[in-house]
């Protein structure tokens, strides 16, 4: 079964999601990757307000291709999440609820997710054309000088993702692999 979820992603909805759930996300999400995360954390260090409210928000780790004329968005699949591990716990502590990316997370991130009802969604790496089609509106809201790394506010409809790590720390990467290995042993 595929679960439809709408942003903002409340703690209540986050707690209902389990590793392995397929979801379609609709509503507002924000893009942010390496350089943008570094700047967000530097702003927090200087006690400046962030360019968007992270409470119950979802950040998508992506640097899209430039939007061609007549299109809303270019190609935009997930980037490797582990590079944001150094910054994610600070944002989770402020109320960030969801992260969309691909690949493994550190134990510090998982602990911060468990403490703050966070959810880590996986999107399919290298499926940039398919995923990009779910973006209906795109606007740069901060750090325009960073080009592909600028923070964008996206309006998405049925953005396809899978819960990889849930708020209890259950992990699809471990479970999916084990299930396959068990199927071989039978």
């Amino acid at each position, binding site marked *: 079964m595929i679960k439809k979820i709408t942003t903002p992603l409340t703690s209540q909805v986050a707690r209902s999601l389990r590793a392995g759930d397929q979801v379609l996300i609709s509503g507002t999400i924000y893009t942010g990757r390496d*350089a943008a995360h570094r700047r967000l954390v530097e702003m927090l260090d200087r006690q400046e307000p962030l360019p968007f409210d992270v409470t119950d928000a979802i950040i998508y780790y992506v640097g899209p291709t430039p939007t061609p004329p007549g299109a809303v968005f*270019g190609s*935009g699949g997930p*980037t490797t999440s*582990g590079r944001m591990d150094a910054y994610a716990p600070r944002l989770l502590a402020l109320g960030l609820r969801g992260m969309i990316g691909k*690949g493994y997370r550190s134990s510090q991130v998982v602990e911060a997710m468990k403490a703050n009802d966070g959810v880590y969604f996986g999107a399919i790496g290298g499926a940039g054309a398919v995923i*990009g089609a779910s973006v209906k509106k795109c606007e740069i809201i901060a750090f325009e000088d960073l*080009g592909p790394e600028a923070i964008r506010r996206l309006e998405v409809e049925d953005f396809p993702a899978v819960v990889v790590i849930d708020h209890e720390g259950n992990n699809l990467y471990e479970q999916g692999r084990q299930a396959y290995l068990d199927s071989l042993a039978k």
Partner: protein
Amino acid sequence: MREINVNLITQTIASLCRSTCTDLPQDVYDRLKEARAAEKGGMAQKTLDILIENADISKQKKIPICQDTGMACIWLKVGQEVHFVGGDLNEAIQQGVRQGYEEGYLRKSIVYDPVFDRVNTQDNTPAMITYEIVPGDKIEITLAPKGFGSENMSQIRMLKPSDGVEGIKSFVLNVVESAGANACPPMVIGVGIGGNFDKVALLAKQAMMAPIEAHHPDKRYADLEDELLERINQLGIGPAGFGGGTTALALHIETAPTHIAGMPVAVAICCHVSRHEKVIL
């Protein structure tokens, strides 16, 4: 002697940048379909379905397959009878990349300084260029836009001769297992063995771009390719890391003579978007 105007190089490179980012090589596409048919179901099949659909849409609508349109890696085999005219060859190549990435609405992902400033060069230059001089009066250009999700997972190890073939196997399996979901599996893997520290990385990259069905001409290495691919696909990582029997689509080995004291091994990891195209001028 044959004169070639460097403008032709610029135009060729620009066109390759655009086509490689939207058209998945047919052999990679076919292997994705075979892998889809071989999976038992669930997330693995569904993920491969999406990757196949994605490749179809990209080709049809000329939308980049992946948003990481990579660092432009270019290999030039230049016939020694060729004389370049009309300008600086290096600059002509960079101009081709500049043009191709701009015209193709491809992402510019290169920063000037690796450590301190990390400011984007805004035009995806410089490209990484490798030249080779060969007999004849032709030029062979291979362009591979290399994404860094998988590039970051590649490794080199200077093994000892006494580590033997078992040492190579355990190193390769280790690299692939730690790459896992980060490298956007199913991966395409190139293994370089021999040469020296820098040569072995080049061998691995060449192996990574070999046709999917190709095998090493020496049966011992060809068997090693088959064994490694089989063992990698038994790791269970699967498409997107969600579990399954397709962790890699192909594994190729390139070898070269080496020093009496050494056995360098490099493992170049590419994601399933194994983009590369070759033209001969």
